[in-house]
């Protein structure tokens, strides 16, 4: 394996930024945002350099490692602080630092009126560093550090305006639900160590060849739980909508483009486990299919532009998880969709931020309309992202989503038909809800509240949007030309037999997908472009709409099944501790004092009565021991 000494700078640069900005405090208010942006950009530069180095080496020598020091070493549990940069992680490195830097630039302007902008940038740098650690760690335990690090950054950023109690609650909810996922990761690591004797990627991969299927299935399921927590997949999806409490650049970077896709990375990185554990793989597919539908349905009912986009993110990641569960045929497509989604969804979130910027932080799309005229650049960049996500050729999403739908059909048998149909249905719903967002915001008649003066955002904001829009247009084509991404990633996943048997010809799948898109778009146009839209959400709606507005009752479920029983148990234990356990102790105490009082009548003082009690007890005990030891 090739080694390198410069990989650590990828992580160290943004980490230094976070530390400097947090320790310098208010002194850094003037320049903190510039330093943070520069460091993020430098990390991107190091990433590009590493890519060029990688390209200059033959395929089998492209992966590089760097061992920094021995982190934990106890008995046979040996973990190095080690970095692994291979064809898979370089994709993430460039996505994280590239999109990350664009979002830093955007935030300079977006957060310019916030008195805590420096702190915001410190958190952004902390996030970049943690996310890079997540994708660069060479073992599951190193990954874990980044995994919780991004969780911490996410918590801090969701709660950036935590003076609002609802936002503080949202950040706590995200952290706690993520910890449930982290528990899965902990279990996976423990099982791996107890059964395979290693927790490094290479060690587990090697041992997985001889491991029992039960072991691999158990590890796989635990990894899936971890992925579900981080990637907001069913049943741990409920935190993502509330996470929109964070400033919009955060939603773009963390809750769309990068952190929430970490679950996909985890599964794809652990391909050697899932390849040999069909049950775990099936569960992955199911979680993906359920979530892609779940998110899409929720997306149709949201009037808050950010929550609609969040539901969409959940759904799109469902596609990626679905692809990752389809095995070697799907891994590369999962990553491809992850990358294209990173561009178009980040772009759309930044567009949403731009709209909010021009509309006094209004997020209710029923109060938008006709913004096309006032924000032409935002409209254009958002529109390109829109075309990409619904899958119109030749935009990015067309390539990546079609590939997933096709692979789903090719899974074979009933399973293939069900998965393929679900993915197709999801595509239709996606087209519907995204068209709804587009129409309500940009092309329908205006329904503004008074005192609105929508205006285009400054260039610092629209430039990143424009660059991301270029990505939304071009990446799909670039990644699929000559199967470039599939070939690039194949050394990571191992060569596999290309699927010769197509359930349906490629052209038919594309035709079906496009039909689904046309149907979805048409319904949305009829409903929102060619009909009047209420400025207030109508209340006399069907039970289905009401349920969808409430996120398919996810919170009601969690609250009644986990939260309230948990609170009741806590109250019960608090009471038990006081009344039963300490009550017993107090009873012993009062009895002793009672005896003491009785003794005091014959003794002269309080202290002596204790002494007598203790003496009697001591003598009795010593006598007892003496008898036993004879």
């Amino acid at each position, binding site marked *: 394996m090739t080694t390198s000494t410069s990989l650590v700078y990828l992580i160290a640069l943004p980490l230094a930024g976070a530390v400097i900005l*947090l320790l310098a405090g208010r002194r850094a208010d003037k320049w903190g945002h510039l330093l943070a942006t520069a460091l993020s950009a430098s990390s991107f530069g190091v990433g590009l350099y590493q890519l060029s180095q990688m390209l200059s080496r033959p395929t089998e020598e492209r992966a590089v490692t760097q061992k920094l020091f021995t982190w934990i070493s106890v008995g046979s549990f040996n973990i190095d602080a080690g970095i692994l940069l291979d064809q898979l992680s370089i994709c993430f490195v460039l996505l994280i630092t590239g999109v990350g830097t664009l979002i830093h630039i955007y935030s300079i302007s977006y957060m310019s009126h916030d008195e805590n902008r420096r702190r915001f940038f410190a958190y952004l740098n902390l996030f970049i560093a943690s996310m890079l650690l997540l994708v660069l760690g060479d073992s599951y335990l190193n990954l874990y550090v980044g995994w919780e690090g991004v969780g911490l950054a996410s918590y801090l950023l969701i709660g950036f305006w*935590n003076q609002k109690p609802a936002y503080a609650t949202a950040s706590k909810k995200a952290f706690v639900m993520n910890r449930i996922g982290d*528990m899965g990761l902990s279990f996976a690591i423990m099982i791996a160590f107890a059964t395979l004797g290693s927790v490094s990627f290479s060690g587990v991969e090697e041992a997985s060849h001889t491991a029992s299927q039960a072991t691999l299935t158990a590890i796989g399921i635990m990894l899936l739980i971890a992925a579900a927590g981080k990637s907001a997949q069913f049943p741990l999806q409920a935190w993502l909508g509330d996470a929109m409490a964070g400033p919009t650049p955060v939603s773009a970077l963390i809750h769309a483009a990068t952190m929430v896709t970490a679950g996909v990375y985890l599964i794809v990185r652990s391909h050697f486990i899932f390849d040999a554990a069909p049950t775990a793989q099936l569960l992955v597919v199911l979680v993906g299919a359920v979530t892609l539908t779940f998110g899409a349905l929720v997306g149709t009912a949201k009037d808050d532009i950010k929550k609609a986009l969040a539901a969409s993110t959940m759904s799109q990641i469902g596609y990626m998880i679905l692809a990752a569960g389809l095995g070697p045929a799907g891994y590369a497509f999962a990553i491809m969709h992850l990358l294209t989604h990173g561009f178009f969804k980040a772009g759309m979130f930044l567009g949403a931020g731009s709209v909010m910027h021009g509309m006094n932080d209004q997020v209710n799309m029923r109060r938008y309309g006709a913004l096309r005229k006032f924000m032409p650049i935002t409209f254009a960049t958002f529109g390109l992202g829109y075309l990409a996500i619904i899958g119109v050729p030749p935009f990015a999403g067309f390539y990546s989503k079609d590939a997933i739908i096709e692979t789903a059909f090719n899974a074979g048998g009933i399973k293939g038909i069900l998965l393929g149909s679900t993915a197709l249905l999801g595509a239709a719903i996606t087209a519907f809800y995204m068209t709804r967002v587009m129409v309500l915001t940009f092309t329908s008649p205006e329904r503004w509240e008074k005192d609105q003066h929508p205006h285009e955002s400054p260039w610092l904001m629209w430039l990143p949007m424009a660059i991301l829009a270029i990505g939304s247009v071009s990446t799909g084509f670039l990644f699929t030309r000559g199967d470039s991404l599939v070939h690039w990633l194949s050394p990571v996943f191992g060569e596999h037999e290309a699927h010769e048997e197509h359930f349906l010809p490629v052209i038919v799948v594309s035709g079906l997908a496009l039909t689904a898109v046309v149907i979805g778009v048409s319904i949305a146009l009829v409903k929102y472009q060619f009909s009047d839209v209420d400025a207030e959400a109508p209340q006399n709606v069907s039970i289905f709409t009401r349920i969808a507005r409430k996120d398919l009752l996810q919170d009601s479920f969690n609250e009644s099944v986990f939260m309230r029983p948990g609170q009741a148990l806590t109250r019960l234990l608090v009471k038990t501790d006081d009344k039963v356990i300490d009550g017993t102790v107090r009873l012993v105490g009062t009895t002793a004092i009672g005896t003491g009082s009785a003794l005091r009548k014959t003794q002269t003082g309080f202290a002596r009565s204790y002494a007598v009690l203790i003496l009697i007890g001591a003598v009795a005990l010593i006598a007892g021991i003496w008898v036993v030891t004879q």
Partner: protein
Amino acid sequence: MNALTTMMLLPILGSLLVAVIPNDQVLRIKQAALGTTLLVAISGVLVWMRFDSANTSFQFTQSVAWIPSFGINYAVGVDGLSLVLILMSVLLAPIVVLAGWNESEGGRWSAKVFYILILVLETMMIGVFAATDVFLFYVIFEAMLIPVYFLIGGYGSGERAAAAVKFLLYSLFGGLLMLASIIGLYVISGRNGGHTFDITKLSEMHNYMSSTTQNLLFLGFFIAFAIKAPVWPLHTWLPDAAASATPGTSVLLLGVLDKVGTFGMIRFCLALFPDASKTFTPIIMTLAVISIIYGAFLAIGATDIKRLIAYTSISHFGFITMGIFAMTAQGHSGATLYMFNHGFSTAALFLVAGWMSARRGSTTIADFGGLQRVTPVMAWSFFIAGMSSLALPGLSSFVSEFLVLVGTFTRYPVAAIIATFGIVLAALYILIPVQKALHGPTTPGNENLPDLNLREKIAIAPVIAVIVALGFYPSPLLNVINPASAHVLELQGFTDPTPSDSAGK
């Protein structure tokens, strides 16, 4: 002169110095106390640097006949386990003095008495971990109660007298049981090679005991240590004591004195009674797991910030006990490292909570609110301490907690699985007070609270630095701990389970 004896003498000399400073020169008294504890801390670091971690027998030993007719010696020495705990104690002492600069005011007695008590306690903290004579250990174990009793009862707040008595009686009860066991051991040693209290010689005695004898003597020690640690259901003295004591005393109580319990489990329960330890392991593992979950739930339900921290400690001591009795390299080393790390994260929590309470005049969590925007440095310190308590990867407690979990899992998977649920509960018991105290709108009455002053910043900075540094680089401690853990396991006849799927392949 012996390094350990010197370290024990220094605080005594310091307390004599404090005693001769006139009562009205309070600042001089404080400076003398701080200077002494700093000197001890430096000597502690020197001992750590000169310690030979490859050598598993006691180092820096000294033995002087004390009561020859009973075979009692003043005998001290350290191995990796006791060295780490002494290092923790002497590093925390100056921080406690500096952080609680004004704690002695408003007490029943003068500042002079307060610092004499602290310094005498420091001598005993070193002695209790360094003692290699069981009788010496017992004497210090009991004698330590006295300064703590007066520190809680004389300088605490609220129901301080009642809490101090509760603490004293609980501890005396445990100490009594231990005394009985020690006498039993002594008798047995007399019949098998001559009366002695030497720990190394006594660790041979289990060969001459019936299993009933061993079990009973084991229980005498274990119950004493389980009260000290504390293990459920012997824990109810701790929240009361922690809520009434000054923050500095709480740090010493939970950070250092409670460790005598878990230290004793390794040094005495395991070493003296290996067979009984095995017999009782299922029960102890159960109690440990209950402590983890139960303590966490009570912390979630706590409304008082000091009691909350005390309950989190019950949960953490559950982890330590579980790691000890898992009898694997990872569990054992993890538990020892956990003791050190818990000392620092609890110190950070208690000190910051103490500053918050002193400023606000209340320990009720609901009285705080919005502190992040009023007192950012104090809020950040509390937050980082909280993250350490919930074992965030990258901070020191993660390393030890994960080692305990993984080390337990290889032998007792069910216990480890239940304990792992504790990490979700930990997120709740930290983030709930963080939200209530630091986030949200500023609660009326808090608008003008002052942020940490320079002295307080200097006190908390090294604690946080240690928490972060050991999170990324725990080797300096693990290198000392690992050989000691391996030695204990070897004596117990335990080897780590081999990976189940690689066996025979």
